[in-house]
């Protein structure tokens, strides 16, 4: 994925206080925020960013954009995303959190049909250190380098970035998949992108303890990823409950029958080990694991 400081960025729902704040932050980082969209605000400017009523109007004026960031009220996030897809925008980052899951089901189906890349909901966005900031990522923990981060967690990603930066290991990119139950894109999609990415030499996967996505990612890594991968699953040592994701497991729980295939912490770690992925116990271990993995290559 070729992110450059020239990549053109649209902000939908720019009237939201959060959007306004981060539009300014992104601009200050050097991100090329070319337009904002909010119905009823067409013709205004915010932080010198022109605002349009409709996405298609914005594109008429500024040309094609590389990505749209959606900050809209979660109940309008689906509409905003569909508007972006209709206008032909190929990448969408849903910053809005709390998007109803059935809205996400519709969006995921639509995006699969159109080949649109959707990140989120509840995503902090993407950062390519020293190049581009997309979303609400805090840039101060990052430095440019060759380690790629893909994360389902928010702040623990900063802990990992901070540990790497302090050890002199910079990052090629950090991707926040978002914390929503139904996410627009998963680990596999981004592992594939980072496998091809020329700058990225090692990948760190930061996963949620209560979900099963990480195991799917582990089997994908075993078959499709050659670059070294290190996993960090903050919370896996804490006694938090599993989230039931599978329909049969959900009704089994209602019937007071033990769910057949809930994934335990042990199973998860075993899945990664099977895929030759080291699971870091703590952020401070990660720089060493990266260095070792890169030497082995």
């Amino acid at each position: 994925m070729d992110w450059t400081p020239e990549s053109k960025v649209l902000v939908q729902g720019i009237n939201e206080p959060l959007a306004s704040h981060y539009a300014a932050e992104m601009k200050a980082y050097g991100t090329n925020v070319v337009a904002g969209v909010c119905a009823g605000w067409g013709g205004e400017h915010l932080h010198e960013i022109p605002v349009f009523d409709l996405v298609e109007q914005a594109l008429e004026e500024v040309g094609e954009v590389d990505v749209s960031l959606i900050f809209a009220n979660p109940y309008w996030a689906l509409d905003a995303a569909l508007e972006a897809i209709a206008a032909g925008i190929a990448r969408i980052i849903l910053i809005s959190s709390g998007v109803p899951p059935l809205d996400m089901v519709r969006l995921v189906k639509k995006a699969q049909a159109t080949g649109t890349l959707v990140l989120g909901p509840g995503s902090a966005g993407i950062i390519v250190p020293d190049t581009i900031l997309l979303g609400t990522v805090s840039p101060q923990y990052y430095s440019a380098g060759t380690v790629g981060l893909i994360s389902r967690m928010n702040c623990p990603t900063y802990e990992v970035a901070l540990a790497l930066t302090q050890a002199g290991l910079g990052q090629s990119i950090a991707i926040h998949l978002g914390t929503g139950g139904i996410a627009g894109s998963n680990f596999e999609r981004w592992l594939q992108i980072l496998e091809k990415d020329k700058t990225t030499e090692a990948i760190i996967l930061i996963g949620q303890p209560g979900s099963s996505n990480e195991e799917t990612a582990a089997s994908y890594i075993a078959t499709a990823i050659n670059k070294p991968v290190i996993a960090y699953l903050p919370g896996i040592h804490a006694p938090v409950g599993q989230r039931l994701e599978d329909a049969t497991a959900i009704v089994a729980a209602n019937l007071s029958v033990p769910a057949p295939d809930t994934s335990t912490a042990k199973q998860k770690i075993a899945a990664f080990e099977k895929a030759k992925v080291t699971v870091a116990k703590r952020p401070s271990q990660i720089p060493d694991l990266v260095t070792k993995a890169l030497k082995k290559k």
Partner: protein
Amino acid sequence: MDLLEYQAKELFREIGIPVLPSQRIDDSRNLKRLQIPYPVVLKSQVRAGGRGRAGGIRFVENTIDAIAAARTIFNLSILGEYPQLLLAEARYDAEQEFFLAVVLDYKLQRPVLLGSSRGGMEGEVVLKQMQKVVVEDEFSPFYARRLALGMGLQGSQLQAVSTTTEKMYQLMLEKDLNSVEINPLGINANGEVMALDGKVQLNDSALGRHDDLISLVASSRGTEGQRGTGANKPTHLLRTWAPGHLCTETSAPGHLGTSAQKPPHLGTWAPSHSSDSPSQPRRLDWRDKQGNVGIISNDVDLALASWDLLSQEKGKLARCLVVAEEIPGNLLLTPSVTEQIGQALEQLLEVPETKVVLVNILCSPGAAQAVAEAIAEYLKPQQEETSAQGGEERQLSPTGTALRSPKERSSRSRSSRSSSSPKAEPQFVIRLVGGELDSVKERLVTMPVHWTDNLEEAVTQTVSLAWTK
């Protein structure tokens, strides 16, 4: 959140899924005014499963029996839950009982239809016969027919079951539900179906756009309130979305956050709104047995990472709070944040077992400074507030003044921490990255406060303090 059976059945009735005539009973004496002819079945309205086996469902033939049975059910706790209401329902002669469900499958990211030709209370039997149809694309009735056929049904049964499944799906979509379950779905000699029990799980993040569901839930809460229990406080309702916050309704550019437009919502921080809807720290339900460490963080995932490290070092969590959650990314300096930190410290110290408080806040250097100030403000050694100018002097050096411990402060306030307890003062481990913290550190030099900018060091220190006698 799960609806009670009678609430689920209200939704069934609305959408056209057959349900029996029934009446809500909130007091056993009201059975004298029962409109439904005997025999009836009385059902405890609890969310817990297994109420039938626990004795929460009783068949009665007359008023005297009904009143006695109702008294028993009202006093019967099912997995710790007492009913606030009973449902009195007509009896139904089912020839066969099926299981039907429509569930959002998070793994497949699709709704799934589930059906079993063996409905009822024997969970394992139900599951063994379970059929599953994934609604891959836009729903159409053939998905429901595919399920019914898979269940081995034919003729009028096939039609009746697939029509019911269609309506369940429609209900799920219309009301943004996580799941709709009918178990059992009774089917009589004429092939007519009847939803004999129902489970509906709402989706909390979608609830804000369904006023009817909010009032459905609130109506039962009202009854619960009258009965004087607070078992199911609707706290999550406070945190849900208010609908209709269209961007076209807000004020002009340049006046962000100053409009009178209500309400600010999740995922958004609204500086000027903070006064009329102050954010509160969120208390997570995490804890270990015999926990003595309190954690405050500004991100639920970071709190989890902290608990993870704590567990690895054999520390035990007593209570965990998340502050300033409404602000993703870098903490922004709003008065609400400062306030929340004070509230969170207070809430941790309410737990008498708390020996160490670990504050782990990851934010910009400027915000780190403000957080440190907020902590100092809460913990600072205080002057006796005797003189008139005391308020002003408090801003200056506290050297040589009488100290008042946080515990005493706390017990003086509304909180319940007992000042008579002879135990040691709680210790504080503060992890902040960046910021000019020296002056704050100096001010708290007499207090049991430990500073670090490293998470793992903070956890190690916390655990060693927690194990110190």
